[in-house]
C-alpha cells in the first residue's frame, strides 16, 4: 500500500509559515487593537486609539509619499529592466551579463547604500568633480530627498525586475517578430505589439517583485532620505523603538500590509483579465 507522505513533505514549510508569518501577523494585528503600555509593550484593553491617531496629516503625508516613491520606483525599474533584459536575452554572452547583474549583490546591502552617499554626498565624487571643474561654488544637495531615495531603491532592487523579465523574454519565440515584420510592422511596432503582450507574466512578476519590497523599504529612506521624505517603514521604526507606541506601530504595519496586498490583488486581477480575454 502506498503511504501518504504529503504531511511529511509540507510539514517543515507549514511549521515555518505558521511560526514566522501567520503568528507574528496575528500578534501585530491584535496589538494594533490594544492600548499602549507606559514604557512600550501593550496593555490588554481593547482600543481603537492607534487607528484614530493614524488619521493625522503627518501620517497620511508619509503614506502618500510612500505610495509615490513605490509607484515611481517600480515604473522606473520595469522601464529600465525591459530593454536590459531584452539585450541580455538576445546576447551571445548572456551568462556573463547575468553574472554582472548578480555580482553587486554579493556586497552588503548597507555598504551599497553607503556607496551612494560617497558618490552623491557634499564631499562626494560628483560634487568634488563639479567644484573642481568650477561648475558650482558650493556643493549641490543631491542627498536627503525623494529623488535620492528613488535612485538608490532602483539601484538596489532592479535585479528583481531584470531576472523575471529575462526569463520570459528568453523563452519568447523571436520568429514571431520576424513574422510581424514580414507582415509590415517595423521592429519597434513588432516588439511592442507582439513581444510585450506575450511576456506579460514576466512583467507582472517584475512589478510585484519590485513594488512589494519598495513599499516596505525603510533602510534606504533612513540613510539617504531626509525627514521630509520619510516612508511608512521609518514611521513604524520610530514608533517601535523611540516613541515606543507599539499599538500605533502595529496599526501602521497593518495598513502597510493591507495596502500592499490590495495593490497586488488589484494589479494581478487587471492582468488576469487581459489574460483571460484571450
Amino acid at each position, binding site marked *: 500500500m502506498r503511504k501518504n507522505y504529503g504531511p511529511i513533505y509540507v510539514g517543515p514549510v507549514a511549521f515555518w509559515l505558521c511560526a514566522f508569518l501567520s503568528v507574528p501577523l496575528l500578534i501585530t494585528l491584535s496589538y494594533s487593537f490594544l492600548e499602549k503600555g507606559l514604557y512600550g509593550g501593550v496593555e490588554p484593553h481593547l482600543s481603537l486609539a492607534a487607528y484614530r491617531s493614524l488619521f493625522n496629516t503627518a501620517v497620511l503625508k508619509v503614506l502618500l509619499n510612500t505610495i509615490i516613491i513605490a509607484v515611481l520606483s517600480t515604473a522606473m525599474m520595469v522601464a529600465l529592466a525591459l530593454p536590459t533584459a531584452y539585450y541580455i536575452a538576445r546576447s551571445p554572452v548572456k551568462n556573463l551579463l547575468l553574472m554582472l547583474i548578480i555580482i553587486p549583490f554579493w556586497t552588503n546591502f548597507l555598504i551599497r547604500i553607503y556607496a551612494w552617499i560617497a558618490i552623491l554626498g557634499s564631499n562626494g565624487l560628483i560634487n568634488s568633480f563639479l567644484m573642481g571643474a568650477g561648475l558650482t561654488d558650493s556643493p549641490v544637495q543631491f542627498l536627503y530627498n525623494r529623488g535620492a531615495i528613488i535612485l538608490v531603491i532602483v539601484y538596489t532592487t532592479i535585479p528583481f525586475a531584470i531576472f523575471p523579465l529575462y526569463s520570459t523574454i528568453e523563452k519568447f519565440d523571436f520568429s*514571431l517578430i520576424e513574422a510581424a*515584420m*514580414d*507582415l509590415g510592422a517595423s521592429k519597434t*511596432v513588432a516588439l511592442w505589439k507582439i513581444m510585450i503582450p506575450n511576456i506579460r507574466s514576466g512583467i507582472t512578476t517584475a512589478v510585484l517583485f519590485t513594488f512589494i519590497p519598495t513599499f516596505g523599504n525603510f533602510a534606504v529612506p533612513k540613510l539617504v532620505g531626509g525627514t521630509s521624505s520619510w516612508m511608512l517603514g521609518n514611521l513604524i521604526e520610530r514608533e517601535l523603538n523611540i516613541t515606543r507606541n507599539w499599538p500605533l506601530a502595529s496599526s501602521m504595519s497593518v495598513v502597510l500590509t493591507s495596502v500592499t496586498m490590495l495593490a497586488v490583488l488589484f494589479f494581478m486581477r487587471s492582468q488576469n483579465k487581459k489574460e483571460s480575454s*484571450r
Partner: protein
Amino acid sequence: MRRAGEGFHQQRVDTVKSSQVTVENVSKSFGDFFALQNASLTIANGGFYSLLGPSGCGKTTLLRIIGGFETPSQGDVCFDGVSILSLPPNKRHVNTIFQNYALFPHLTVFENVAFPLRLKKTAAAGIKKAVQENLELVRMETESKKYPRQLSGGQKQRVAIARALINQPRVLLLDEPLSALDAKLRQHMLLELDAIHDKVGITFIYVTHDQAEALSVSDQVCVLNKGEIQQIGSPAEIYESPANEFVARFIGETNYLHGTVAALTDEEHALFESPDYGSFSIYLDKKVQPGSKVALTVRPEKIRIAPQKPDKLPPDVNVLHGTVEDMIYTGFQTKYFIRVSQNKEPLIVFRQHVQYFMDEKPITWKDKVCLWWNSKDSFMVEVSK
C-alpha cells in the same frame, strides 16, 4: 455548387499583381562559409517554384534573401526586372509562410489575419470583409474566434496562409511549411496549397527538403547542394534525367552501374563495358567521349524482373542476370535487392503487385532472375572523382 470564397478570388485574379523573380549571381557568405554561390535563376510570374535540397544547401538563405531578411554578399534580386535589394522586407510585396506558422499566440485567428491591415490602419469594415474572405479561402471562417493554441497543426497552417495573403503579396515565400505536419496531413495540405495557388494566381516560392513535395506541386524545381545550384528543371526532367550524381541520388532511389564507354556505335548509342556487368549497347542521353568513365543510372521502377529471360523481348533493352539477395514486401510493391556482381552493391528493383496472385510462383529469396530495362530509361552521370 459555388465554393466559398470563389467569387472574391476570381475577381482578384483579374486585378492581382504577381511578379516574375530573377536572381542574378547571388552569393552569400557567413565568414568563411559560403551559404550560396553564384546562384542565378528565373522564377516565372505566377509559377509554383521549388527550392529543393538537404539541410544547409542554401535554399533557406536564398528564400531569406528574396524576402529581405538577409542581404546577399553579391549579386542582385529583381522583381519584374527591377532590383529590390534596397527595399526593406515590408516594401517588397512579399510575404512568408514560416516553418512553425509563427501565429501570434495572444491574438485570435481573426486578429492574426487582421494584423497587417490593423498596422495599415484600414477601416474596420474593410478589415472585416478582407479577413472574412481570406479565412474563407482557407476554409477557416468558422474558427475566427479561436486562439492559435486551440487549433490543430493543419488549421494553424491555413491561418498562416490567410494571414500571409491578406496584404496581397506579389510573391509568396513558403519556408518548409509542411514539415511540422504528419505525413497524411502533409499530402492533404499540399493539394490544398496547390489549389490556393491556382486561385490566387501569384508566384509561389517553396522551400523544401522533401523531394516528393517538390515534385508533386511545382512547375519548376531548383535542386541545391552546398550552396550551389545543381539542376533546374521540371519535376519530370529532374527525376528522369538528373544532371549529376547528387541530383540522381537525392531525388528518389536509383542504381549505379559503373563502367566505361568503349565506343560510340551510332548517333544515339554506345557500347558500355564493365567488369561487373559485362558489355552492352546503351542509349546516349548526353554527349560523351569514347573511353570516359561513367555511371549508368537506372531507376528501380524502370527495371523489369522475371524468373527466366522471356522468349520475346522488345528491341533496345539491356538485360542482366542475378540472384535475389533480399526483398522487402510493402503491400503495393516488393523491393528486391538483386546480386548481379560480387564486387558491387546489389541492384534495387521495384516490382508493382498489379497481379500478385496471378504469378505462378512469386519471386523470392535465392531465386535466379532476369532483369531488363529499356535502354532509353537509363541515363549517364559523370563520375565524381
